[in-house]
Every structure is written in structure tokens, then in C-alpha cells.
């Protein structure tokens, strides 16, 4: 296999990480909604934590995007 093909396959494999991060982000918002519906009064106070969890989960998905971009455009 030549190097270009290997790079493109690697970039495609990195996209799996984006999909898994999507599960993580969905989990964050899903769990928040689930508990917010049980106790709507306490929900508004937890929005900051919701977005911290979202940011942490999302960052790891974005890192896989960075890996793909590095493989396509930077790696020789």
C-alpha cells in the first residue's frame, strides 16, 4: 500500500472518533434532560456544568478531526 492511501485510510479511521464523541455529547445532554425532567426546579442551576461536560466530551471528538486533518494535509 502506498503512503497516500495509508494516510487517507488513517484519516477515515480517525472519523470513527468523531462518531464516538457524538455518542458522548448525546449522553451528556440526554442525561441532563432525563434528570431535568425529574426535578425541573434544579435544572437551571446546573446549566454551567452541562456545558462543561459538553465541552469536555466534544473536545475529544474534535481531536479526532485534528488527527484526520494532520494526516491529510500535514503528514508527509
Amino acid at each position, binding site marked *: 500500500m502506498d503512503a497516500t492511501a495509508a494516510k487517507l485510510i488513517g484519516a477515515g479511521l480517525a472519523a470513527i472518533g468523531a462518531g464516538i464523541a457524538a455518542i458522548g455529547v448525546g449522553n451528556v445532554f440526554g442525561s441532563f434532560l432525563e434528570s431535568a425532567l425529574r426535578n425541573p426546579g434544579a435544572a437551571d442551576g446546573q446549566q454551567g456544568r452541562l*456545558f*462543561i461536560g459538553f465541552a469536555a466530551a466534544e*473536545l475529544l471528538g474534535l*481531536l479526532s478531526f*485534528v488527527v484526520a486533518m494532520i494526516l491529510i494535509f500535514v503528514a508527509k
Partner: protein
Amino acid sequence: MAAEQGNVDPMHQFSIEPLFGTDHWQIAGHNIAFTNSALWMAITTVVLWLFMLGGMKRALVPGRWQMAVESMTGFVDNLLAANVGPAGKKYVPYIFSLFMFILFANILGLLPLGLLGIHPFTATSHFTVTGVLAIMSFSIVLIVGFWRHGLHFFSLFVPHGTPVWLLWLIPVIELISFLVRPFSLALRLFVAMMAGHVLLEVLSSFVISSTNSGVLWAGVVGIPSFVLMVAICALEILVAGIQAYVFALLTSLYLNDAENLH
């Protein structure tokens, strides 16, 4: 094939081009030409300035514009009050500028000005720009931390109730997570903005190529892609707001560490 000619290079929109001053504008060997990135940051600043100026009339009964500005300042004020407490009041100007600059830069980069032949440039889709913003936040955290607590600031790396036999490990982990903060802060904003714009460009290349190869493909691929583009644009507006909020929120959390330790 004709369809091959219509290929769109999704990364071209991020290229930085000098607008003027390419020849002899140098400082210590670095070219300081006025680029499209600089132009759009300047536009962001001017738009932000006009937005603020329109809302600072201090009317007793606020109009719509003043209400918009006041809801923004009130939002940042609440953010700091909730996350840092009373000591957070003095950071309101910094966090507010940060939040509004990122928000305006993100949204200006999304404007459909291409219809008029002007190509909007998202300044926040470059690691240099977001990196400088993150370094600013990180230096403020360091300066405030060492100013207020002196060397006691290092107790940040040893959380309360750490068992004695773990004292060799926990500070190392905490130190790494502390040092990674500016990178994660900058990376998140830049990648989130870049990914969205690349996605829109790729979808637009689907629309162009499929429309060029006949009515059948235009119906099967082109129209669904176009509908998806509209939906993704709406998502991008949401992401622009969320990323600006997350940047401000995380900066205020780090400031909380510096002000109050754990």
C-alpha cells in the same frame, strides 16, 4: 469530465492573503502585512463597538437595542457571579470582551456575504488567533494566582483530601491537566469553527458537481445536500454561540481556581 472541473477546495477559504503592505512591512524579519484575517478582526471590533455604542444611552426605560446590550452584559455578569463569586466582578470587562469578540467573529464569518461577492473570513478558525486568546486567559490566571496566593498557588495541584500515599502521583496529573488548559481552550474553538466551515464547503461541492452532471443527479443528490446545508447553517449559528459561551465559561472556571484555589 465536466463535473471534475467543478471541484471545490474546502480548505481554500482559510487561506490568509495579504491585502496590502506585503513589500517592506517587516518587524524583526516577520512580515506584518495587513491580511484578510486582520481585516475581519478589525470589522468584528468595529461592529462590536457600534453594537455597544448603540446600547449605552443609559435610558431609564431601555429600548430594544439597549435591552439587547444589557442582556449580554447581564449574562456575563451572572456567569461570573455563579462561577467565581463576588471576587469575579472585576473580571467582567475581560470576559465580556472575550465572549463578545468570539461571538461576533464567529457569526460574521457565517454571514452569506458571498452573494454580494465579499468573502467573509472567520478569524476564529485559525489556531494563531484562538491561541493568543487562550494564552491571554491563561496568563491572567497565572498572574492572578501568584499575585493573590504567592507560592501557595501550587496547592492547586494537591486537591483537598488527597491520601498521603498518592502524593507522588496526583500533583503530576493535576499539573498536566493544568498545562493542557490553554491548548484545549484554543483547539476547541478553532476546530469547531473550522469543521463547520469545511462541512458546508464539502456539501456545496456536492450540490455543484451533482447539478453539473444532469437533472437526475441534481434531484437525487443536489437538492437533499442543499436542504442539509440550510440545516447545518442553523446548527453552525448554534455552535457559534455555544463555543463563545464555552470559552467564556471555562476561562471563568480557571479564574475561579486562581481566585479561590480549590
